[in-house]
Every structure is written in C-alpha cells, then in structure tokens.
C-alpha cells in the first residue's frame, strides 16, 4: 500500500473515536442548549427555545452567577497558591541529593489518588470531632479550635481550596523540578561569579528562563481548576448552601437532579468558552516547542 493512502487509514479509527466521543457530544450539547430540554417531559428535547436558556442564566439566575463567582475565586486561589507553593518546593528539591529522589518518588503518590478520594480524605481530616487537621489548626490558631469547618461557608470554601492545592502540588512540583533542571547550570554559575546574590540569581536568571514552563503549568492548572467537580462533590457537595458550588457542580445539579438538560447544556457551553482560550494558549506553547 502507498504511504499516501496508509497515513490517512492509520488515523481514521482514532479520528472516528475522538469525533464520536468528544466532538459529537459538544455539538449535541450545543443543540440541546437551544431546546426546552426537560428530562421528564417527552419531546421537549426537540422543542426549540432560541437563546432563552442563555438569557435565563444571565438574567434570572443568581445561582448561576454565584457558581461563576465561586469558580472564578476558586480558580484564582488554587492556581496562585499551587503554583507558588510548588515553585517553593521545587526550589527546595532542585539541588538534588538523596532527600530529593525519595521526595520525588513520594510526591507521585498524592497525584495517583483519585480526586474523589482526596475529597473524602479532606472531609475526614477536617471532621470537627476527630479530624487531624481540624485538631492541628485548633492548636495553631485558637479561634479555629471549636469551628465546624464544613458548616461555615467561608471555611468550607477554604477546605475545598486546600484539598485542591494539596492534590495538585505534587504534579506542579515535579514539572517545575524538570523545568529548573533544564535551566543551564552555567548561566546560574556565571551569575554567581558575576556577583549576584542568591535572590538576584533567582530573579534575573532562573525565573526568566523558567517562564515558558511556568506559563504551561499555570494554563494547565487553570483548565483543571475551572473544571473541578469530584473533590467538591465528595467534600461539600456544593454546600453549605451554595458556598462551594462550582460551575461543574451547578451544571450537574441542574441537569441530573432537576432534569433541566437544555438549561444545563447552555451553562456547560458557557463554560467551554474560557476553555477554548486556555486551550489555544496551551496549544501555542506545545507547538512552539516542536
């Protein structure tokens, strides 16, 4: 067979699978978003409404705006905190040695943990009666001794953020260690000899050269933060009230609990839009490297 035919045949099955499992649902979700789309009302999935689901979300639903706000704050906090802490940890581990190789191995464990399980474990850790972190924070910060973390809107939000940061630090750290290792050592040494202090070396030499890796890490983490569902579901189920209801959770709730498939498809598509920008930025980095 000629390569010219073969090359298209080889990609065909994959393209079909990707189309059927990812592209088609996107298009179908777009179609659903313009219908009445009630699960319990036969025929409503073909009953067209125009933009009403969208205008409803924007104009009539404070809960939608609440979840947008929750997701935005959640994304900014988790991306910021995870990146800074992971960078700190990566810098600690960068010099190498025996501690680093064991640390690197151990860091893989939290990341192999399912996010749902992370949610469970943090609910456990913050249990007001026998949670380890609850006790720890109680000793460290006395005003927090008697609080019930998951019952307070702000503290529950803090716990959800902590669980996410905890779950993502290992991955970001490992990536950043790789990034630091690819900063040529002689540029760092040249700067040391040139007279730069440790901090100046980091600011003038290491950080600028780490830039592209940091950008990729931040983009990736933003994408994952925006999508967050599993931990939230297991940890707080969006509560108390709607204090920790992320967009994914809001969509799930409206679609599955209330059967409003059309409306939740509309919100889901609104969520796809920032993803497109982030993916575009990510793809630019990926292809610039190649």
């Amino acid at each position, binding site marked *: 067979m000629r390569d010219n035919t073969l090359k298209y045949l080889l990609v065909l099955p994959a393209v079909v699978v990707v189309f059927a499992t990812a592209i088609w649902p996107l298009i179908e979700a777009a179609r659903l978003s313009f219908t009445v789309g009630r699960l319990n009302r036969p025929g409503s999935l073909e009953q067209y409404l125009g933009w009403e689901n969208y205008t409803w979300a924007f104009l009539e639903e404070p809960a939608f705006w609440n979840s947008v706000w929750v997701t935005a704050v959640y994304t900014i906090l988790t991306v910021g905190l995870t990146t800074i802490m992971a960078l700190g940890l990566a810098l600690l581990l960068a010099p190498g040695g025996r501690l680093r190789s064991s640390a690197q191995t151990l860091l893989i464990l939290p990341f192999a943990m399912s996010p749902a399980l992370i949610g469970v474990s943090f609910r456990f850790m913050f249990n007001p009666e026998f949670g380890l972190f609850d006790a720890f924070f109680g000793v460290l910060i006395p005003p927090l001794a008697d609080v019930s973390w998951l019952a307070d809107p702000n503290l529950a939000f803090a716990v959800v953020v902590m669980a996410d940061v905890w779950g993502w630090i290992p991955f970001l750290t490992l990536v950043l260690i790789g990034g630091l290792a690819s900063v040529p050592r002689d*540029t760092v040494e040249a700067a040391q*000899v040139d*007279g730069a202090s440790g901090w100046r070396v980091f600011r003038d030499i290491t950080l600028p050269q780490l830039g592209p890796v940091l950008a990729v890490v931040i983009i990736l983490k933003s994408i994952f933060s925006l999508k967050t569902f599993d931990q939230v579901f297991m940890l707080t189920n969006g509560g108390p009230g709607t204090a920790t209801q992320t967009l994914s959770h809001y969509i799930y709730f409206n679609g599955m609990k209330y059967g409003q498939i059309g409306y939740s498809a509309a919100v889901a598509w609104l969520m796809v839009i920032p993803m497109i920008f982030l993916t575009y930025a990510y793809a630019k980095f990926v292809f610039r490297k190649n």
Partner: protein
Amino acid sequence: MAEIKLNNLTKRWGDFVGVDDQSLHIKDREFLVLLGPSGCGKTTTMRMIAGLEDPTAGEIWIGDRMVNDDLPKDRDVAMVFQNYGLYPHMTIFENIAYPLRVRGVDKSEVKPRVEKAAEQVELTQFLDRKPKALSGGQRQRVALARAIVRTPKVFLMDEPLSNLDAKLRVTMRAELKHLSRELQITTVYVTHDQIEAMTLADRVAVMKHGVIQQLGTPDEIYNDPANLFVAGFIGSPAMNLINGSVRNGMFVTTGGTQLVKLDAADRAKAILGVRADDMQVHDAGQGDIDVTIYAFENTGESTLLTVQWGKQRVIARGDRHLRKDQDEVVGISLDPDHLYLFDPETEDRIRI
C-alpha cells in the same frame, strides 16, 4: 590584581578523589594553565577557586584573604565558561552589563564600560541581539567581554575554546593571548589542549588523577618532562616511548636491538622516550638502525613515518619533500641530546 595560593587543597565526593592534597602558588599577573585529560581534577580546582565547589579540605587564598567561606559573588573573580553561560533572555549589552548591574555600578557609567569591553572583543555591532542570534565565536567573545567589563582580581577560564571549530580556535587563541597581555590580570586557564597550554601559558600545571604532575614553563614541560605521563601527554605526535633495558651504556629494545648509546647505569627495565622531531630519516643503512615503514603520511608541512620496530611502532618526522612508501626500508637515527629515560615501575624520569 592578586596572587592565588592553594594550600593542601582536597576535594572528595564519597570515595572518589577529585583533587588530592594539592598546593599551588599562582603569581600576581601570571597566566597559569591547568592541563590534563578529562577527569584529572583541573576543572574542579578552578571551580573551587571560583567558589562554585566547596573544598573538602585545604585553603584557598586570593590576595591576602582566605576565601574558603566566601560566596562566589564576594571573591571578585570573573569566569568564562565552557558553554559560555550566556543569559539567553538578555541582549548582548545586558549580558555584558550584568556584572556591573548586580554590583550596583552607577547607570551612567555602565554604558561606556560595556561599549569599551565590546570594542575590545569587536562586538560593537551586535549589542542589541540575543545570544541565540550569534555564532559560536561571537558568543565566546560575549563571554570574554562579560569577564573583562570590570577589573576582577582573577580571571578564570574553563576550556573557553573547546566548543569552537579548529580554525576559529586558532584565531581566538591569538586574540585571547593579545588580550591577556594587554590586561595583565592573574589568569587561571583550564584546558585539555596542549597547544593552548603551550601557546598561552606563563606556566603550566599538568594534572592527572587529582595530582599535579609537573609545574613549569611551557619550555620546561616540553623539553624537560618530569615523568612518563607528562612526556606522553605533551607534544604532537606524542613522544615515542620504547620499552627495553640499559646494558653497558647502550639502550637495548625488548626485541634485543642495540639502539643507542646512553650515559646511564645498567637497569633491567627502562623506557626510552624520543620525540618524532628528534629522529632523522635516512636511506637504508645510513642511520642507527634500519626499519620497515608501516605507514607513510604526508601532512603538507612535513611527513610522518610510522615504522615497525620489532613489536613496537614508532613515529618519526621527515622532511616535507621526503617521499617513501609502505614496506620500504629506511634508516633512522636518534638525536643523542634529546633522549629521555624513564623507570617503567615508578614512571619517574631517570636523569641521564
């Protein structure tokens, strides 16, 4: 400007000994070359002077200050790295200016000094570019400019020419020599290239296995090697080393050939060293000994004859107009004034 003193300097990583209890006194304004094969400890020695590596034991003095515990930035040295260590995200101007900037040199003063340094290495037209846009030789010049932009106590150069192609290396070598004569700053230069060592150095320290084998002027190193290692390492082609013994004032090869008269005591085992240039090629029967040509090479400026000498092969240099062919027989004679004798056990030189 300063002298450098290394006192009983040692560097170990676990069981591996990088530098073994070495002392070295580098004079003010001297150009000292550390020469040796890879892994001999020459780079480690330099990195300890720079402060990039902590010595396991011993003292490092720059001028009248013990700098063991000083950070690199406080040692007032400038270094040129093998891969140049240029800052890829800065322009050439910013690269050269960086040592001034981090030392808080007044902004109005930075520009003229960078421009002067750039001029000295002929880089003026590239100041706005990034390192990526420059060729290897130009990058090398940037690294040099960054080192000379301020007047450090010491220059350190770690195989600065090894990443250049052969032709450029010769040009840069001359430029480097010119610059160092002009600047008159104490310089430590690490290389595995003996030609660089011979041409640039005031003194050369030949190293092996973390130990300095010989310290001397290029002349001494070449013409008066202290031991077998130095003799074999310096010179191109390498010095011929012939196994044999000394009997009745004659050097006798292992094969039993009486080779040459030697004014030395008898010994059962000895190695005779003779450079290719210190052998004359004659027609068969006219030299000390007749040998068969194993290979004949014409390099243009001279000819090289690899001749079979019993079980050993020896290289002799012939006139550039000499024409011979494989398997021909020629006569060889050795210059009696330039013969070296070594003890194969201790590898030390036996003075004749």
